[in-house]
């Protein structure tokens, strides 16, 4: 039987506020345990939450960027459950009336565009952290993270493959960073996702029973976890079994998902409006003001790059995939006298492959835009050939030095002195007399060989155009 995969994602994204959502504690990462956990965060009796305006502003920003409805009225609700890293015994979240509803985001997979529906995005507080290691009969609780503002972005079950889920997650990730509402740091848990996965026979309208995979914190894992889960469900159904609705945890070490809690003791959260927090009312003026503060979004930037820099769509899309790449590109263009096409080629080609191979983020690239622009300048002014440029780039990557320094130190300056090139050409022709004769006899393929010999003799430094010209003249 042919199966169809159905995926919906819930993305939890920490908002980049300075203080927590309901208290004046700092949200900085990595501080001493519990040094940023105030009376409100540890839920001492008698404390009251006071909502952070910027957290609301950031949620509105997100909603506007995904074409969603911004609800002028939204309501905070209590989600009740017991866990030691949730000291109040409930999480303040939004349930029936979230701040953002009905948005959409388009993704591209295998050159096909597809719109993914966003059901809602709601504001909530993060929980603290439980530490199990290093204790025998106890668990350590760090509440620094408790009360950090989050938006939970819930998609429609619109994705049909792990690749689409990854594309969607990447797009949301790039977007929250464009908007500067989250640092998107996945190692620190600022951006994580739960995946709802089910399968059904192709053509079937009804959704199959779903499993929820919890707390996936990398793009690679989301793909692996979903693919693994799909295989598991197909195996069950093809063996005549039934998928159980449950929460599963992805174990990256074993590349498998395992059950966390089954449906029998599934949580009954008993949501109800939080009496400590009256409805949040946002004025039209406030929403309008946020709208005007939106930065240039990826799609608009891509259009502008195509227009202003005369790039094709593929280059422009790659360069605007993240805000950092776009900024890197524009700085590089500036540093090489506006040569946008060559800048795009280097960034999407050589630089991208070095970053990939060495698993380095663009922000940490040893070659900065100014240095790359400098290298492009040296190619454009014919100090070096494009091919030598790649050698120079390699040294720049390794040593973090400028193109000029590398060219100087390694003596890579292109030979454009026609006298010097002529001498090399003469030597090559003298020691390859047979091949030269073959060419004169009409075997044109030998020409490439002779060019190669000259380039080799010059250690790649001879200007290729001049070599071609001189060889042709000598052989005619």
């Amino acid at each position, binding site marked *: 039987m042919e199966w169809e995969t159905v995926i919906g994602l819930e993305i939890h994204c920490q908002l980049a506020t300075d203080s927590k959502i309901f208290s004046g504690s700092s949200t900085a990462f990595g501080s*001493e345990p519990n040094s940023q956990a105030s009376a409100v965060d540890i839920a*001492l009796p008698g404390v009251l939450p006071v909502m952070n305006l910027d957290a609301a502003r950031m949620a509105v920003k997100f909603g506007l960027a995904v074409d969603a409805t911004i609800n002028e009225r939204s309501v905070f609700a209590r989600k009740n459950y017991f866990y030691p890293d949730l000291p109040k015994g409930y999480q303040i979240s939004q349930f029936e009336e979230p701040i953002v509803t009905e948005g959409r985001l388009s993704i591209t997979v295998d050159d096909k565009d597809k719109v993914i529906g966003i059901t809602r995005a709601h504001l909530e507080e993060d929980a603290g952290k439980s530490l199990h290691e290093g204790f025998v009969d106890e668990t350590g609780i760090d509440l620094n993270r408790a009360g950090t503002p989050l938006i939970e972005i819930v998609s429609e079950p619109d994705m049909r493959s792990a690749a689409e889920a990854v594309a969607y997650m990447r797009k949301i990730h790039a977007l929250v960073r464009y908007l500067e509402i989250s640092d998107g740091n996945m190692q620190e848990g600022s951006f994580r996702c739960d995946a709802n996965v089910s399968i059904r026979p192709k053509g079937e309208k009804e959704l199959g029973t779903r499993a929820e995979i919890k707390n996936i914190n990398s793009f690679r894992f989301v793909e692996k976890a979903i693919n693994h889960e799909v295989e598991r469900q197909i195996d069950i159904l093809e063996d005549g079994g039934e998928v159980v609705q449950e929460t599963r945890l992805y174990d990256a070490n074993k590349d498998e998902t395992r059950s966390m809690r089954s449906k029998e003791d599934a949580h009954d959260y008993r949501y109800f409006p939080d009496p400590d927090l*009256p409805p949040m009312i946002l004025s039209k003026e406030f929403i309008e003001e946020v709208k005007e503060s939106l930065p240039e979004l990826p799609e608009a930037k891509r259009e502008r790059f195509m227009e202003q820099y005369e790039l094709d769509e593929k280059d422009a899309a790659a360069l605007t995939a993240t805000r950092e790449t776009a900024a890197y590109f524009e700085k590089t263009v500036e540093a090489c006298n506006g040569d946008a096409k060559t800048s795009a080629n280097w960034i999407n080609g050589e630089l991208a492959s070095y970053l990939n191979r060495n698993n380095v983020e663009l922000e940490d690239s040893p070659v900065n835009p100014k240095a790359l622009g400098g290298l492009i300048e040296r190619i454009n002014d014919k100090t070096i050939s494009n091919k030598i440029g790649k050698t120079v780039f390699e040294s720049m990557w390794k040593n973090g030095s400028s193109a000029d320094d590398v060219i100087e130190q390694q003596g890579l300056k292109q030979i454009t002195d026609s006298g010097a090139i002529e001498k090399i050409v003469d030597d090559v022709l003298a020691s390859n007399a047979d091949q030269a004769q073959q060419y004169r006899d009409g075997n044109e393929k030998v020409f490439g060989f002779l060019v190669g010999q000259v380039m080799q003799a010059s250690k790649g430094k001879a200007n290729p155009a001049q070599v071609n010209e001189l060889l042709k003249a000598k052989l005619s």
Partner: protein
Amino acid sequence: MSVTEKDVRYVANLARLSVSDDEVKFYADNLSRIVALVEQMNDAQTDNVEPLSHPQDAPLRLREDRVTEVDQRDDFQKVAPAASDGLYLVPKVIE
């Protein structure tokens, strides 16, 4: 609607309350009577009434995003049942 003994046990479990068999019966009776009292409201005509999220007709107050709290961990941990190396300690939990 009446509250059954099963309901009482379910809610007690969610609230992490220990309730004896005698108490289950007692609470089921009492809660049923409270629910019956509240149920009188079902007779009220509410077709044109908006649901109420909060009894006070005041919008949420929003504060500027500023760090105003200082570290009072040592004071807080003095009254905690157990703490070590800055962490609050609880009986082992494993999910």
